[in-house]
């Protein structure tokens, strides 16, 4: 229980088409992440799944049942919002229990589920507090708890970590991953942060301008991106794109990830000058201005000392170089 099918969903706000025909299949227990730049339609797609927006056309099927005309509360879903969206006038306990109470669940059952969820998220000491008396991280845990108690077929997360600071973000990410492992529930997660996508997902859906660019596992997207958009979006620092014509290649663009370049002070393929070096400890990012390739980023594992202005030669790993055609698609 907990599969989701999206069939040719389109959404337009007046003349503006936000979703241009989305087809997607999510199997039971999968953790699917929608990722894409701002305005790509990922949040809108999540809202259509939740029933908070009506699609202009197409069907949303949850567990084999067409829910396109079902109100959000009856879809068997739970949602965690970016801004927590806790009810300010209710205690943590009542915040978590409200949905069940509305659905007419017996009080004993509500109490039992709140007990499980609050111990899972270590929220027991705060059950009688109001949201205003909690920190950001605690609030987001309450919001997750509110979703957990409903025992939904589908969990929907709308950028749940964006309002947290960096350290909390890592912790909460871990909690969400553990939660998924423990509940074995189907989860759909929207983010613009590719690190969250790579670390959490079983399956990543890359969206751009209302279209799905590629669907695949994190490593699949990293190793064999379908086009230049996915190649540039997945991976940090971003993949280097070099104009094929400047290198005398037939492909429109040549792509090579910063970590698939090696540098040498004496000889190599592309001669360049160091513009800037970022020392991160575990690795070093070098920005080279190359005669042939233009400005490229090189990621070196460990410490590498390079002064701005020094001359270095960068050599791409030929086995890990991508060739893109004029339409942006990868050339085999």
């Amino acid at each position, binding site marked *: 229980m907990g599969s989701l099918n999206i069939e040719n969903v389109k959404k337009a706000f007046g003349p503006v088409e936000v979703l241009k025909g989305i087809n997607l299949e999510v199997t039971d227990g999968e953790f699917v992440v929608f990722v894409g730049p701002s305005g790509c339609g990922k949040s809108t797609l999540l*809202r259509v799944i*939740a*029933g*908070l927006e009506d699609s202009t056309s197409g069907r949303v099927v949850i567990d084999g049942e067409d829910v396109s005309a079902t*109100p*959000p*509360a*009856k879809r068997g*879903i*739970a*949602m965690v*919002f*970016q*801004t*927590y*969206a*806790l*009810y*300010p*006038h209710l205690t943590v306990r009542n915040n978590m229990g*409200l*949905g069940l109470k*509305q*659905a007419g669940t017996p009080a004993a059952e509500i109490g039992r589920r709140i007990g499980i969820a609050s111990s899972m998220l270590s929220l027991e000491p705060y059950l009688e507090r109001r949201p205003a008396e909690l920190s950001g991280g605690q609030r987001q845990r309450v919001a997750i708890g*509110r979703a957990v108690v409903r025992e939904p077929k589908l969990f929907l997360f*709308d950028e749940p970590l964006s309002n947290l600071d960096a350290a909390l973000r890592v912790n909460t990410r871990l909690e969400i991953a553990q939660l998924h492992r423990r509940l074995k529930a189907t989860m759909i997660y929207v983010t613009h942060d590719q690190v969250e996508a790579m670390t959490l997902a079983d399956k990543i859906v890359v969206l751009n301008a209302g279209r799905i660019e590629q669907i695949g596992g994190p490593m699949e997207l990293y190793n064999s991106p379908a086009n230049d958009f996915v190649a540039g979006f997945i991976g940090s620092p971003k993949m280097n794109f070099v104009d094929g014509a400047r290198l005398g290649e037939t492909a429109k663009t040549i792509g090579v990830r910063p970590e698939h370049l090696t540098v040498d002070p004496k000889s190599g393929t592309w001669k360049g000058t160091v513009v800037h070096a970022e020392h991160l400890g575990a690795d070093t990012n070098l920005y080279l201005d190359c005669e042939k390739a233009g400005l490229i980023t090189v990621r070196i594992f460990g410490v590498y000392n390079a002064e701005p202005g020094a001359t270095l030669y960068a050599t791409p790993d030929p086995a890990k170089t991508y060739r893109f055609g004029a339409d942006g698609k990868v050339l085999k």
Partner: protein
Amino acid sequence: MSTATRSLPRSIGAHAILLTYTVIALFPVIIVIMNSFKSRAGIFGAPLTPPTPKTFDLIGYTTVIGQGDFIHYFQNSLVVTVASLFFVLLFGAMAAFALSEYRFRGNTMMGLYLALGIMIPIRLGTVAILQLMVASGLVNTLTALILVYTAQGLPLAVFILSEFMKQVSDDLKNAGRIDGLSEYTIFFRLVLPLVRPSMATVAVFTMIPIWNDLWFPLILAPSEETKTVTLGAQLFLGQFVTNWNAILAALSLAIMPVLILYVIFSRQLIRGITSGAVK
């Protein structure tokens, strides 16, 4: 306090301006209250001096309470003001919620239409309103006044409240929808408490003109049964003799309820006016 942000001459200057303004604003009110405690000779002999043992007289208050049916007038005013206020806030907030929350064809036009009343004084339609009330048999009832004042207060209420409703987090409303709350529950339980400061602002701006209005009570409900305080005070304003003691006492008494309601709303009011200006 640090001297960087405050200098004595500036501070004195600012206080002088503010104090002058306060004096100007309070002057008429104080004159009215002061003279209401004086005898007729005291009022005309030295209108600007406070009551002395010689001029002190409660004749005004005894006349007001003894002569006209003033308690009844007060009651009418209160019923009209509170009922109108209730309907203005209820319908204004509901319309504002619909305008800010739902996308529908003609949303902007509807918003403009509802705000139109701010620019057109309702008194221009007095003749038509009177004809309407005569036709529907509502002349000389408090209902007539409540209906007119509700209509008068709605445009500003819708205009102000819809701005504030737009600021209420969409996520919160959506969370309510996912938890199965009805739109009414979302409106009354989630949204209204969050816009309470702006409701108080609207309440004060709506309340004062209604309480002070003389025009519509005079035209629509001048009967003894339905007189409001402001109309009742006219009782003492004769063509040849004016009972100033009684008028001043009546006006002083009429200030009280507004003052009480203002105190109730004022804490919220200040938050309502400043919210948005400073985060």
